[in-house]
């Protein structure tokens, strides 16, 4: 990639950070709402653990850490790319966007990373502070676990972004995707372990979910953080391998779709 190209992405990145900070009320509203939701989850677990010390090898303190970290991960997994593609296709500006000398998906990525950068300060840190004060200090299981958590979180970000981006590309073929986006959002919310860990799911469902990408957005990074399995355990290694496999698969899928979409736009002009 050329120097000039990188400069363009950096410029997009910077403008987008500024843009996301101008909506002050949105920022405070988000912090408030996310805190309430996180607190509610924490009390949900406290109520459940009232009569039991450990369930599925996990005690209440671990579950509280799980809740706080899950809320923080959700910041890293926010992206707007599907909406961006949709509106761009809707308004018919996508053809012009794609003719530009920079890769349009690169621009969308820069925007999303900028959005997340702003959110790290606007949301993640406040959530961490509130989590520490009112719920529990979310200490990781150990340095090795934490390192693997970071690796896994990094891959989770990419998996999430690629899924969203490929999902957004459906807009090139069908117009109204609101309902589809909702389905995807709820499936991720419920089947990724973001709210309720997958250990509680019945075995047959868990076996299926382990091979789907959802679990690698929340469940795997969270398992690593709380030290559900030892670093050297087979679950750990298999988890990271499957995550990597998904990352590779999705990247290939993305490159393939990008080609299809580009030729479609070039032929039809959007």
């Amino acid at each position, binding site marked *: 990639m050329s120097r000039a190209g990188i400069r363009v992405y950096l410029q997009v990145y910077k403008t987008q950070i*500024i843009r996301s*900070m*101008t909506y*002050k009320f949105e*920022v405070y509203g988000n912090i408030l709402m996310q805190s309430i939701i996180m607190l509610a989850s924490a009390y949900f677990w406290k109520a459940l653990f009232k009569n039991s010390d450990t369930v599925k090898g996990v005690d209440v303190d671990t579950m509280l850490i799980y809740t706080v970290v899950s809320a923080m991960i959700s910041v890293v997994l926010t992206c707007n790319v599907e909406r961006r593609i949709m509106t761009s296709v809707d308004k018919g500006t996508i053809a012009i966007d794609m003719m530009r000398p920079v890769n349009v998906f690169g621009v969308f990525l820069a925007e999303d990373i900028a959005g997340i950068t702003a959110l790290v300060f606007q949301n993640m840190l406040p959530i961490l502070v509130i989590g520490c004060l009112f719920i529990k200090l979310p200490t990781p299981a150990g340095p090795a676990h934490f390192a693997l958590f970071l690796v896994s979180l990094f891959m989770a970000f990419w998996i999430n972004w690629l899924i969203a981006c490929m999902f957004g590309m459906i807009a090139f073929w069908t117009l109204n995707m609101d309902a589809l986006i909702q389905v995807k959002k709820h499936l991720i919310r419920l089947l990724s372990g973001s709210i309720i860990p997958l250990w509680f799911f019945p075995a047959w469902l868990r076996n299926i979910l382990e091979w789907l990408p959802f679990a690698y957005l929340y469940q795997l990074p969270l398992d690593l953080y709380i030290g559900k399995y030892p670093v050297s355990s087979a679950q750990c290694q298999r988890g990271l391998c499957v995550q990597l496999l998904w990352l590779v698969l999705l990247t290939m899928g993305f490159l393939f779709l990008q080609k299809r979409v580009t030729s479609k736009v070039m032929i039809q002009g959007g």
Partner: protein
Amino acid sequence: MEQEKVVIEVNHICKQYKVLKKGEGIKGALKGLVTRESRLVPAVDDLSFQIKAGEIVGFIGPNGAGKSTTIKMMSGILTPTSGEILINGMDIQKKRKEVVRNIGVIFGQRSQLNWDLRLGESYELLRHIYQIDKAQYEETLDVMDQILGIKELLDKPVRQMSLGQRVKGDLVAAMLHSPDVLFLDEPTIGLDISSKYALRKFVKEINEKRKTTIILTTHDLADIEQLCDRLIIINHGHLMEDGNLSEIVNRIAPYKTLVVEYYDEYAPEHDKCELCFHEENVAKYRFGKKEITAARLIEELSAKAQIKDVSIEEAGIDDIIRVAYGQ
């Protein structure tokens, strides 16, 4: 003439907007998260006037002059910061629901028709909202059909209509409940010539047939020239001029322009008028009506150079605007 009844009375209205100050760059954005600086910008400042039944009044003024704000306050959309607006003697802020029964509103480029449905469905809903009984509804529709030929459009989905057809649809929608007063905010903006023509014809005819009082804002001077008995010029939220077109012209632009075509490129100056345009053989002289007569001017100019042709342009609305806006 029984045009004496005052329909709209505007007393000392002011409107201020709060505008947020925004810093620049990331630093400014960060600062904006904690502080909130704002300043008040007056959009309309102490405006008073009255409008009588059956008048067609045009509001003009440059962008941001406050004409849209004024018309939106008169139609009950914006709340004045101070002052009061009475329509048919009722304060529109205090008795909004009662007052708006008797007003119709058309905002250019903003439709009140349901995009997905047949035009008739939108009218049917309006009929319920305004509690118009079937007989009266049919009668109004007949009248509108004569002016605009609306009936053939009733079964057409709005999204399949041309812009011109949609405009017609909106005009009728605003008149279904037979309002006494019709507000039009930039009604001709973005319209092609035939749609503009239809709109103007409509405004004229409902004013004549139904004695509807009409208030419009526009940028199109032809609207004013062809429609308005009375002109109100607003700038910086103040009332600059109020009167009928020719009266305002006589008062603030009391001059004519003499266009002279000479046989060669030399155009002589004259001390009683201003040479305001000169290109090749053509020269334009602007002269005050009291300073000199056209005949005299031609006579004195022809003594200095040989004239091929002359014509006289009256001061028009553009001249008023130039003077009033101070440009």
